[in-house]
């Protein structure tokens, strides 16, 4: 693959400012197993100075006879192998990551600094409460901040990520209805929802009912009224929706549900568009999750574990997972001692070992406190401004299926490019040649051939302009030289991988060419 402009590219001069990318410094790298040669070691142990143990005498038939196939390399070979692999990565520290609905925002360095402070980083979950007052204080303060931001009454920080939060939230709803002597069987989910919503409902034992969007991409109130019955446990709604549209009649949606005893669950994936502007608790939401790894700037994806706190109204509080951080008696200095309350007879039980992904709580709290209320509000405004800037700069070249005003993300369709055979996945791959991570392709499924773009507030106008120039160039290429886009990326180590074969016939482990399992 050529790393410089190909002849084909020269036919369409780049308009605007182009970010030049080069191919990866390391073009090929064998699997670590393939680099192995017998007897190589990355360590040298001192002579054995204790009696040698016989594993089969100690473990009997459980002792492993076949040592397994482990690669044998020197230390420098291992270091170079993984360093070379790391050069193939793309990360938020390298450039924009416009994955719609993922909110791939910058992870501020102050978060990392605070989470590495010795007293925090070295804290152990088995420390007694008396020695954990600082850590409990972090949990407690973060809870209070998140409750203020969401307008809810009670919260658990335990869930490990968004889908786990959904699971926990729906278990709370189920426990609530059961406690009322009114167990219900159905959950309504709009057709624009994340796939995790129906998966959550099914996992919690509910029957999923599909709610069609109206022509604006929003909940159809008449349809909702028609579908909600005394057997509906909840509606799981993402607000703003996956096309970035705020459900302006959310309070009516809540009223329709509440009139039939059903609850309103809000998927907080898009909370980045609401923080500091409006509060789910004020517009009728009963239970919701937050993604600290989206809205609150903790690492997302490979950078760290997620965190999906669940906030709820008073009526659901008795069912929260244990333990819950509570204030004990106040000392002479007026400060309350904090403790963990396990005595909650109506709880749905623990959903995560210890107290959740504590390191993420530290980072999220650092982010909230560093920004303060005005800073968080500004963040929301900047995220919405950035998305609308992209929308206005691209809507003449890319089809906008829903003209409704959008907030923090924008969804185009590939309809115009498809006339030349260029689909959303092709445009995304061409974007790699211009130094950007692709946007989200083919989702939400209510938009055929979707290009879902979320710049977040992290990006400067300069970076957005580079992205816009690249997208406009690709639109021209799709018209004038579609082959160039259809065969992209041209600048990477490998180009088009066989995704279909990978999904149909996945190979999940290394198999040596001779078929031997061990040595």
């Amino acid at each position, binding site marked *: 693959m050529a790393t410089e402009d190909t002849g084909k590219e020269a036919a369409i001069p780049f308009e605007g400012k182009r970010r030049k990318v080069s191919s990866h410094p390391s073009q090929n790298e064998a699997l670590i197993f393939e680099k192995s040669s017998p007897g190589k070691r990355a360590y040298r142990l001192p002579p054995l100075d204790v009696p040698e143990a016989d594993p089969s005498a100690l473990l009997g038939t459980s002792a492993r006879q076949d040592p397994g196939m482990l690669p044998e390399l020197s230390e420098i070979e291992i270091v170079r192998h993984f360093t070379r692999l790391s050069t193939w990565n793309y990360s938020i520290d390298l450039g924009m990551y416009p994955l719609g609905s993922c909110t791939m925002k910058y992870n501020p360095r102050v978060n990392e600094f605070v989470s590495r402070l010795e007293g925090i980083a070295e804290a152990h979950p088995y420390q007694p409460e008396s020695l954990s007052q600082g850590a409990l204080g972090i949990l407690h303060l973060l809870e209070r901040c998140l409750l203020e931001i969401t307008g809810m009454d009670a919260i658990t920080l335990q869930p490990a990520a968004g889908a786990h939060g959904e699971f926990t939230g729906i278990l709370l709803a189920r426990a609530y209805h059961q406690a009322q002597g009114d167990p219900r069987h159905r959950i309504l989910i709009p057709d624009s929802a994340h*796939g995790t919503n129906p998966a959550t409902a099914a996992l919690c034992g509910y029957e999923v009912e599909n709610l069609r969007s109206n022509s604006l991409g929003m909940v159809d109130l008449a349809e909702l009224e028609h579908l909600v019955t005394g057997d509906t446990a909840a509606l799981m709604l993402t607000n703003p929706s996956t096309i970035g549209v705020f459900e302006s009649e959310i309070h009516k949606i809540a009223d329709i549900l509440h009139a039939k005893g059903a609850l309103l669950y809000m998927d907080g994936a898009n909370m980045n568009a609401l923080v500091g502007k409006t509060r789910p608790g004020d517009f009728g939401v009963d239970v919701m999750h937050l993604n600290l790894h989206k809205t609150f700037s903790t690492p997302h994806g490979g950078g760290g574990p997620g965190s999906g706190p669940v906030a709820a109204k008073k009526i659901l509080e008795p069912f929260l997972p244990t333990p819950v951080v509570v204030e004990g008696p106040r000392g002479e200095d007026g400060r309350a001692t904090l403790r963990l309350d396990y005595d909650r007879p109506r709880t749905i039980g623990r959903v995560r070992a210890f107290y959740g992904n504590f390191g993420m709580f530290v980072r999220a709290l650092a982010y909230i406190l560093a920004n303060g209320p005005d800073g968080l509000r500004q963040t929301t405004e900047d995220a919405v401004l950035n998305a609308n800037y992209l929308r206005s700069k691209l809507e003449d070249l890319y089809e906008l299926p829903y003209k409704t005003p959008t907030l923090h993300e924008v969804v185009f369709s590939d309809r115009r490019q498809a006339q030349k055979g260029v689909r959303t996945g092709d445009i995304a791959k061409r974007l790699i040649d211009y130094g950007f991570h692709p946007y989200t392709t*083919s*989702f939400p*499924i209510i938009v*055929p051939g979707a290009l879902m773009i979320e710049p977040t507030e992290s990006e400067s106008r300069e970076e957005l302009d580079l992205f816009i120039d690249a997208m406009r160039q690709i639109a021209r290429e799709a018209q004038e030289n579609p082959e160039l886009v259809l065969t992209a990326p041209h600048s990477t180590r490998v180009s088009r991988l066989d*995704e*279909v074969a990978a*999904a*149909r016939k996945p190979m999940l482990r290394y198999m040596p060419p001779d078929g031997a399992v061990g040595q």
Partner: protein
Amino acid sequence: MAYPASYRYTREHEWIEVQGKTGKVGITDHAQESLGDIVFVELPQPGSKVEQGKVFGSVESVKAVSELFSPVTGTVLEVNKELETSPEKINKDAHSAWMLKLEISDPAGLDRLLTADQYEAYVKEETA
């Protein structure tokens, strides 16, 4: 691709080929086209009941997972095991890659389905 005139169709893009009291069910060429490369098909066990308009399984492509809706009410007699290992058969020839053989318990339900002409018009309208 032409939609066989002897089949009946759902608005959710399944087809059924009726022979006496049994019927073969699959998805339409339009459905496979919009799904893209299909990588996995999840089907019910033989002997299980299916209900008209209700979900009986799912089909996964490289783009998305979509639910499958039963064209009629009945009992599953047989599932097409071939699709477990070769889901690409649906992409190659959707109208012969059947998924289920059903014993139809409510033949009157067939009247609620679309004919080939009606389905073709429906697809045209939907993609317009």
